């Protein structure tokens, strides 16, 4: 066999999918059409990731896959067999906040809160990208590996997360606090 069909017959429109979410492994029988976002919200009842546009335009559904931020609405759950998925629920808890969560509270980085879990998961992924020396559209010289997270860099790197309440100045301030190590 050279083509692996995860426990399905090619004639069926469902598949058994093994997902590792926040360190816990679960197996579901899912319609192949199920987005990762719907699998998280409707099947695992992890409702932190939000459905805003469902077309990859707003960022409210952002989660981390193998440490990288992605839009969970624009990927199929069945594609993520044995990937390491982290949602906002796995990033921190009410008793042990992630530094970004603490900074968002401290800086009032939200109003209605609908975009916030996406903003925080995105910021966590973004900080890892910057630490790895990735350039951005705001980087003057892409060949340089010295990345300084100025406000312009933070804004550009976070442009995939829309905040309808326009809490942007406070979101940038919260992320800047974490960059400067003052977030907790």
């Amino acid at each position: 066999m050279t083509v692996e069909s995860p426990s399905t017959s090619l004639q069926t429109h469902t598949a058994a999918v093994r997902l590792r979410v926040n360190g816990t492994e679960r197996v579901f029988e899912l319609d192949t059409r199920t987005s990762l976002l719907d699998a998280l919200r409707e099947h695992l009842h992890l409702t932190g990731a939000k459905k805003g546009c469902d077309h990859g335009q707003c960022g409210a559904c952002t989660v981390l896959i193998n440490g990288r931020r992605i839009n969970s609405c624009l990927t199929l759950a069945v594609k993520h067999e044995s990937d390491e998925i982290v949602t906002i629920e796995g990033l921190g808890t009410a008793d042990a906040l992630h530094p970004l969560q603490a900074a968002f509270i401290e800086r009032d980085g939200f109003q209605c809160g609908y975009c916030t879990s996406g903003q925080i998961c995105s910021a966590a992924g973004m900080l890892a990208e910057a630490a790895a020396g990735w350039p951005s559209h705001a980087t003057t010289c892409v060949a340089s590996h010295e990345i300084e997270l100025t406000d312009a860099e933070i804004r550009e790197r976070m442009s995939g997360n829309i905040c309808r309440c326009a809490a942007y100045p406070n979101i940038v301030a919260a992320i800047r606090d974490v960059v400067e190590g003052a977030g907790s």
Partner: protein
Amino acid sequence: MRAFTYERATDAGAAVNAASNPGAKYISGGTNLLDLMKLEIERPTHLVDISRLAFRDIEELPDHGLRIGAQAANSDTAADARVRARYPVLSQALLAGASGQLRNMASIGGNLLQRTRCPYFYDPHSSCNKREPGSGCAAIGGVNRNHAILGASDACIATHPSDMAVALVALDAGIELLGKSNTTRVVAIGDFHRLPGDKPHIETILNQGEMITAVVLPAPPPGRQVYRKVRDRASYEFALVSVAVIVAIERGTITTARVTFGGVAHKPWRSHEAEAALIDRPAGMATYRAAAQAAMKAATGRGHNDFKIDLAQRTLCRTLADATREAEKS
């Protein structure tokens, strides 16, 4: 979304066989395909997931070029130290497109196969020859501010949305393809995408089931590389007009000139006219203006997009001025 069956490919040849059946499609990052499947504009009956095939690496070639695996993420390619040092125009173009989240999912091969963002293509209630051949083009005579000014036809005035492909055309990239019975071919990127003509629903030269396995970059040409994108908001937006420029100067004379536009046509638009007006001429605004005029000589507006003809010329002049100022310094 219509129902489909799914398989995860572990072997490229078997994937090509599976995707050669009618109704089958590859899925890689899926960022554009799933978007269109939700709207039932794309309706595959079978998906072949090729995202885990061993086509993710970026490798050195003996001629000082690079071979970028088709499954490499846009973000990994933009961040690759060799791409940043030797092909900065590619890194800049990738970083000018989409968002951090999308670049982490989207693959290099998939980026080449993006469909247009023409709003009439996306609206199932509008006529669109690309979505439904023979139904007409609602953009002609409709709201066409974002549409093509070069190479369009009476059947379609849509533009190609990729930033990356604009840089790849300036870099003379080759596209490596795998077909049935293990046949391979390399197609120059300039020949990969089609102009709309009377068949705008056929966008590339790919055969059913043929798979993009890599993008091959020849050794970088001498000179400064710059990608400049003009859009309605500062980030996370498609281009109104963009330009990829590679230019070298020796003692005040232009010795290398490559000019490719994005946002103006159904495919990335290499302007050999602009290049001919630059090469062996003195670097300076008079030369750049002449090149910009040559580039847009055949341009036609459709009303709302008339401004693009001026905008493309100004963008080219400004980009050449910035690039040659830097080129003279180094």
